[in-house]
């Protein structure tokens, strides 16, 4: 696309303008809530920790403290590097996504040439904290090659920016392609779920292999590593070894290989941008839902209306559906990882699932978005809001845990013996207790600790500045969720520590009571908090909506 004759010749400055815009938006996001500042500080600390950790490890490897590793480095680096870049790309799709404010369509009215715009967005990504952290870490990793000679060290310094650039280009291309192949809401939802399941599966793969004693001889990996070293994702990791071996032609070819991939990814992203602009979505069809749906099945009250509304929304919200994939996934992973441990290990999946089910509800008002204002306009009582929310989640959690338990019974076969049944029901009760206690905690969290979320229409996008908060605040909630099940945990520890293992079914009533008490407490306290903070929540949601624009 050529610029019109009358367009000011500013295109060379445009990429840097986009970089400045990225940081201006990040700084603006800091002002949305004090929690954002806390999250940013933690994110910076995490980044500093990564850099320092990499530096220390590189120093240890490079100074011979771990020189046993040296012969394996040419095998490890291309394989681990390739996996790492793929992991980062999936992570981008899952959690970070293409930044909504910095997405291409936002700049469409300005007539910026595709290539310039693409370059600007790429540079904006490369100047972010994750990219800078990765760059510095990879540069420090050069110390690991000290034993390979000065040329290897210098080559790693060259490879570092190349690796980061490759990862960024691949991620951007993946998201651009994802955006055009999933142009219907259902397609987006499916893609979102698949990406996350793939991500968790990749993360768990080493565990599964180790536990199932799938051993791989290092020697057998050498030819695989050679192949990966010549593939574009592994190529930049080979530069130090090429330099160490004096194979400068290979060095140049590896650089070219990585650069070629970057160029292809750049062109793919650019083509996707062009395609999106020139093709209207054919998949958009009006959704028809006859009757009142859930509204006719919930109690005839304001809280019933809230339950119905929330239930209807949850069915169509890919962002929150993940929380109901995870528990099933846990069970499957734990079943795969279970080797001679016992069926209780699989039931642990059901137990942990209890905690995850309310993870998104801990930020539920942010997922509702500005629609929450309807309740404020109507003067809805805070307790009606909390009751309505709790009702629908209680139904979902109970049904889900019941179904998950059936699946787990089939996997473990625990239904066939009285002891198996007793153990299973202890886990089921503990899972339900934890799920509802966590729900109580979530009802306190979601009106006091909010963080921005992507919009429902664009689950892959990222409100500027969300990354840091999203990493930190769910963690805070999970800690509180852990604390909520402490009474049950203490009783379980006492039972087993005092040698009364046979009395473990007593955990069942304790867990159920624990869950109900924390649920009631959380609902009541949440209502009190919401009543006090209702208008503040509206203001916060308004500021989040501005970030999603």
């Amino acid at each position, binding site marked *: 696309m050529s610029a019109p004759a009358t367009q000011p010749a500013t295109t060379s400055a445009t990429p840097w303008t986009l970089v400045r815009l990225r940081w201006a938006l990040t700084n603006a996001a800091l002002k949305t809530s004090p929690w954002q500042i806390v999250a940013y500080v933690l994110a910076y600390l995490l980044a500093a920790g990564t850099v320092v950790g990499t530096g220390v490890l590189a120093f240890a490897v490079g100074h011979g403290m771990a020189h046993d590793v040296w012969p394996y480095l040419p095998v490890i680096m291309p394989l681990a590097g390739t996996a790492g870049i793929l992991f980062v790309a999936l992570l981008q799709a899952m959690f970070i996504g293409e930044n909504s404010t910095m997405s291409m369509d936002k700049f469409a009215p300005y007539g910026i040439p595709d290539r310039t715009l693409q370059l600007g967005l790429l540079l904006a990504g490369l100047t972010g904290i994750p990219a800078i952290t990765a760059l510095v870490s990879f540069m420090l990793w050069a110390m690991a090659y000290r034993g390979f000679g000065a040329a290897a060290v210098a080559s790693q310094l060259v490879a570092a920016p190349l690796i980061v650039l490759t990862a960024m280009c691949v991620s951007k291309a993946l998201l651009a392609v994802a955006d055009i192949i999933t142009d219907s809401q259902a397609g987006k939802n499916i893609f979102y779920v698949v990406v996350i399941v793939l991500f968790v599966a990749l993360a768990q793969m080493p565990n599964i292999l180790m536990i199932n004693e799938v051993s791989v001889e290092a020697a057998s990996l050498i030819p695989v590593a050679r192949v990966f070293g010549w593939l574009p994702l592994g190529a930049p990791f080979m530069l130090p070894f090429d330099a160490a071996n004096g194979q400068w032609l290979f060095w140049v070819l590896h650089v070219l290989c990585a650069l070629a991939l970057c160029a292809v990814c750049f062109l793919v992203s650019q083509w996707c941008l062009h395609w999106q602009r020139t093709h209207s979505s054919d998949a958009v069809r009006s959704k028809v*839902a006859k009757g009142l749906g859930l509204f006719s099945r919930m109690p005839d009250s304001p809280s019933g209306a809230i339950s119905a509304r929330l239930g209807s929304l949850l069915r169509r919200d890919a962002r929150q559906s993940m929380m109901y994939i995870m528990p099933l996934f846990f069970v499957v992973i734990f079943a795969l990882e279970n080797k001679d441990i016992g069926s209780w290990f699989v039931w642990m999946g059901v137990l942990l699932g209890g905690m995850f089910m309310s993870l998104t509800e801990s930020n539920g008002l942010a997922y509702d978005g500005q629609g929450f204002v309807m309740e404020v306009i109507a003067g809805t009582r805070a307790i009606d809001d909390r009751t309505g929310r709790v009702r629908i989640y209680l139904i979902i959690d109970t049904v889900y845990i019941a179904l998950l338990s059936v699946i787990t019974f089939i996997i473990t076969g625990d239904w066939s013996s009285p002891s198996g049944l007793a153990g299973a029901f202890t886990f089921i009760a503990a899972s339900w207790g934890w799920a509802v206690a966590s729900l109580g905690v979530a009802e306190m969290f979601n009106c006091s600790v909010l963080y921005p979320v992507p919009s429902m229409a664009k689950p892959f996008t990222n409100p500027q500045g969300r990354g840091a908060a999203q990493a930190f605040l769910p963690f805070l909630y999970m800690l509180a969720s852990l604390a909520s099940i402490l009474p049950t945990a203490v009783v379980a520890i006492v039972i087993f520590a005092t040698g009364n293992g046979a009395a473990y079914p007593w955990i069942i009533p304790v867990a159920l009571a624990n869950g109900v008490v924390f649920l009631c407490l959380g609902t009541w306290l949440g209502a009190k908090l919401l009543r006090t903070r209702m208008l503040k929540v509206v203001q916060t949601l308004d500021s989040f909506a501005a970030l999603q624009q």
Partner: protein
Amino acid sequence: MAPVQAPMPPAMQPNPAMAVSIRGLFKRFGNKVAVNGLSLDIPTGSFYGLVGPNGAGKTTTINMLTGLLVPDGGVAMILGHNVWQDVNAAKRLIGLMPQPEQIFPTLTGMQLVVYAGMLRGMPRAEAAARAKDLIAAFDLTAAANIMVRDYSAGMTKKICLATAMIHSPRILVLDEPFESVDPVSSANIKDILVDYVHTGGTVVISSHVMALVERMCTHVAVVNQGQVVAAGTVAQVAAGEDLEERFLQLVGGRHGAAHIAWLDGGADGQPAPAVPQTPAGEVRR
């Protein structure tokens, strides 16, 4: 939650006989005073237009009046009820039209209106019956079972208005209700609102479209810099002139065309160069 108030002199007391009575309403955001001691009476059964330039304080006033924003000072009274003494009681008397981004677009039109009714404590059957009537009145019957996210901007405005009317409030507060609505729908909505006013209801609309206010409203208040600069019947405020002209006289800010030299699309085929500025910000020529 009610703002702390010193005792008011009698002249500053709100008038409980009015549909809306505001006295000395004040709101500051940081260093900016958005509403600066605004006082206003809106008679019951009036069709009241609230007009003013951007940033005049109209939306802030509406938000404080409807319980969405706590004022820093002053009193807002709805049909004799102090809004901030019992904010939820006041909200039950008001029908505030949500903005299109303040609804749930993945509900169908029917579900959304029923939701608004049930939130107000209406029995489901009655909410559903009223929703059906409102949807028919707004010509949305064919789209009743379609998700609101698939509605056009005008249809969305109409469904927002329906959610504000479902509980038959005595005061309707509508922020730019006719924006994006086609002329036919506008006329139909206007008929509904006029009918509503004839039953003793009060409509308060905020708008920038002076012609619309002049045509529809019985009363108008011009707000500028957080204060009411003129209020009364449309004829009183217009004072024998065209309302738009009168509005411009009251709020000022008009100036001659700027005649920006470079705004000629680059007549010679070249963009006009930017004028460099000195560090002090003075334009160098």
